[in-house]
Structures are given as C-alpha cells and as structure tokens.
C-alpha cells in the first residue's frame, strides 16, 4: 500500500510504562514490524550484586519491579535461604505470605488502572486504583517506614514484627476492597467500549506463551492453569484455599480479567492467613554477614510472573554471580510477535495488557 512510516515510540511516551523504546514500522496505522530497544533503565544490578554482601543486596531488589518490592525481597531472600539452608519461623512465613499478597493486590491495581488509561479512559480508573493502592502503601509505611522500597523481608525472617492493630487495618482494607472490586467491574469489565477495545485483541495462544516462557497472569490468561503458589508451593501457600484464575482466549481482556480475579484470590489468601498467624518471633536471627557455597535457583510467583534468582556462591561474603530472571523480560519478548498486523491503538492496548515494568526488564 502506502509508504512505510517509522515511528519511534518512546523512550519518552505516555504509554510505554517507563522508558521502553519501540521502533514501529507503520503502514498507515497498521504495525508492520516492531523492534523493542531496551536498556534505558539499566543499572547493572547483577554486577552490583557481585560487589555487595548478601544482605546488602536486598535494598537493590526493591528497585527491580518497583511496584512489587515485597515480592522481590521475598524472592531474593528465599533464594539465599535455599543456598544457606536457613529455617524461617512459622510466624515469619505467614507474615511473608500476607505482605506478598498485599503487594500483589497493589501491583495488580496499578496494572488495571494503567491498562484502562492506555485504552483512553482518562485518569478515572487510574485514580480509583491508586487510591486503593494508597491504603496498602500506607500500611507498608507503618510496617517498615517506606512507601515504595521496603527492604522488609530479610534473610531468615523479617526486619521487624508487625505493629499491634495491623490485622484490624488489613481486615478493614479487605472489606473495602471487595466493595471497590464491584465498582471496577461496573466501570470497566463489562463496559461496551472497553470490551470492544480489548476483546480479541492481541491473542496469545497457549503454545506461543509457553514457547516464549511467558509467565504469570499473562500465561494464565492464555488458558494454562499454572501458578507456582499452587503447583510448587513455597512458604505456606499449600495451607490456603484459593483458585488459580485462568482465561479462555488469551486476549487483552482476558489478561485484564485474570488480574482482577487474582485480586479477589489474593484477598482470600490474606483473609485466611491473618486468621491463622501463629505466635512467635519473625525477626531474622541470621548474621548480617556470612559466607556461602554452592548454587541455588529459586523462583517465586511475582505479580508479573515467575521471578527467578540464580545465586552462585564460592565461599566469599558476596555472591559470586547473581542472575535475575525477571518475568517482564520474557513477557515483553513476545510483544513483537503479538502486535504485528494490529493497528497502533491495539498495539498500545496489548502493551498495556502485558503490564511490564522497565525496572526489572533492564535491571
């Protein structure tokens, strides 16, 4: 048809979620080809890890997926604990589950809000989601004195016990959030325009998802019933009753819906966990500086997929090598295959539904 137009979408663009740079080849409005360029947020985390002690690296994991810092802390600490064979008290395990799920709720809320924003719903769903998230963030502020980068989970436990009265706050939040979820359904899920924009857009087949090692809500939206919390339970996830939400088609709407449903499931987990917290001391008893030997690879189910830490230790105080397998990295790698042939509005919709965080892609 017409002349090819190369549009550089990003690194500064309202809907590339940070500093992703997509080189789009357009024919009119149809995307012919897409080449993602990464690295604008590269902070050489893995090199830093080699120059810090194990404990010193925990704050850096906050900066990977900055919307789910607790989950990153958790993933890293579990990997180190696996390396050192450290036992964690039951109370710490329950608290870890609670904060990880709270952070998952917060992260999914942001995903839902920004997805609606990408579809052109001006700011309203985003504000709703952020004001809900604000409650979680304030709670975390109470727990560890920080709103975004928590450094709360420590090797062998947590940095401190929860302040008294926290369970009441969490219970109130759960009650409030159930009401809010009804509102999201009314505002977005069955909105005709929203459906028209996201249904059957960017269909990710089961086979393609597995081939690209896609994980998390995106994989589940493609109809694969796979959740590490269920299939390879870590911490105490096997003690809770929750469902794995799956989609049917694997389109953008399914990815949105799976996230919305997962919020409900996370709230269910928190409800059960908060009733069953055992007494004890969750504070870490492990030395701040220690030596390790061997290798460990451990994955946890992050809000965006499976976060893996590959630690190699050679007896020093620092990790010899720390590879971070970030979920968004693999999830993004499927994007060029997904948006070829769609038009530019749909490309933005698909990118929004993938819910990437550049902090953990570039590391």
């Amino acid at each position, binding site marked *: 048809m017409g002349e090819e137009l190369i549009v550089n979408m990003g690194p500064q663009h309202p809907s590339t979620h940070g500093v992703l740079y997509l080189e789009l080849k357009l024919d009119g409005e149809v995307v012919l080809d897409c080449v993602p360029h990464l690295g604008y947020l590269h902070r050489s985390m893995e090199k830093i890890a080699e120059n810090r*002690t194990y404990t010193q690296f925990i704050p850096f994991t906050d900066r990977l997926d900055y919307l789910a810092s607790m989950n990153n802390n958790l993933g890293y600490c579990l990997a180190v604990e696996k390396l050192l064979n450290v036992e964690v008290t039951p109370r710490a395990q329950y608290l870890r589950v609670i904060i990880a799920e709270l952070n998952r709720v917060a992260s999914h809320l942001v995903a839902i809000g920004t997805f609606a924003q990408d579809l052109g719903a001006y700011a309203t769903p985003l504000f709703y989601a952020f004001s809900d998230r604000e409650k979680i963030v304030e709670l975390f502020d109470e727990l560890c004195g920080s709103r975004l980068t928590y450094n709360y989970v420590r090797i062998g436990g947590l940095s401190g016990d929860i302040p008294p009265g926290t369970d009441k706050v969490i219970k109130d939040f759960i009650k409030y959030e159930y009401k809010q979820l009804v509102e999201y359904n009314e505002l977005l899920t069955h909105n005709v325009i929203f459906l028209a924009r996201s249904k059957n857009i960017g269909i990710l087949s089961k086979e393609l998802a597995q081939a690209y090692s896609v994980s998390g809500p995106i994989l589940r939206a493609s109809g694969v019933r796979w959740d590490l919390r269920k299939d390879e339970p870590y911490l105490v996830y096997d003690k809770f009753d929750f469902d794995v939400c799956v989609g049917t088609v694997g389109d953008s709407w399914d990815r949105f819906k799976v996230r919305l449903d997962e919020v409900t499931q996370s709230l269910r987990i928190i409800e059960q966990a908060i009733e069953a917290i055992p007494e004890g001391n969750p504070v870490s008893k492990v030395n701040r*500086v220690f030596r390790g030997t061997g290798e460990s*690879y451990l994955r946890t189910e992050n809000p965006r997929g499976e976060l893996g830490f590959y630690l190699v230790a050679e007896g020093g105080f620092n990790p010899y090598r720390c590879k971070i397998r970030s979920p968004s990295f693999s999830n993004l790698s499927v994007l060029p295959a997904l948006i070829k042939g769609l038009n530019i509005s749909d490309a933005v919709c698909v990118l929004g539904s993938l819910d990437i965080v550049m902090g953990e892609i570039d590391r």
Partner: protein
Amino acid sequence: MLINDTQKKIKDKFPSLAVEIVGSALVVPKSSLLEVATFLKNELSFENCHSVTAVDRKDKMEAVYHLYSTSNHIMLTLKVILPMDDLTVESLYLLWPSANWLERETFDFFGIKFLHHPDLRRIMNPDEWTDYPLRKDFKRDDFIPRPQSTGLKG
C-alpha cells in the same frame, strides 16, 4: 533424585557422551548441546527455557540454561563449559523462542557468541561498546570494584 534420572535417560540415548553431574547441574559437552537440548525438549518434555545465563569462572566460562518441565515439575540446570579462548556455543533459539532475548542478554554481558542466532545484537548496553561488563576481568577507569568484604571485625 530427579536429575539422576535425567542423566540416565540422556546416557541411554547417547551412550558415547560424557554427561556428568556437577553440584546440582548437568554438564554436557559443548559439541553435543544441540542434540541433548533437542532430546530434552522433545522426549523429556522440557518445554520451557526459563533462563539463559553464564558464570565467569576466570579460567573458563559456564553457559547455564535453566530448563523447566511443566508436566514433570523438574527444573534442570544445564551447563556447558566453554574455554575462554573460544566463547561460542550453538543457539537454542529454534527449540525455545524465549532463548532469543535471553541469549542476546548473555552475549551482551559475557560476550558468548551464540552461533546461528537470528539477531545477536547487544540488548541493554550501547551497540558500539566492546566491553563485556559481567566478566570478572572487566575494567574501566570509572568502575572501581569494591574490595571483597572481610566480614564483621572485632
């Protein structure tokens, strides 16, 4: 022990290969990586290439693959030892498309050339750069490695 089963199956299939277990990883010779990987994917149902990376051991380089079998719930750590003067290894891109970007990343940081890779460019660092920053001998004027911690004193 699941890794032993995997080793045994590979041994049965390729009796002449030196497949050994080092630590918790399966080490295969570089020349037969593609064969073994194809076997792992097609017959032992490791359908997921989770992560590709490398470890610089100063005298040699290890390319590390984490393969996952969703049906059997096995995470296999596959290693290939590369001599420092010949950092080339066959690309597994055709078996697992996810290896595409992961191999690019490994190339970017370690300089391992993945043969027959469709698009082996740097992924994070600037294209014109010639250094490989995650190697242990990486040196730059503005990069000063912190001295190894000596632990708590006194």
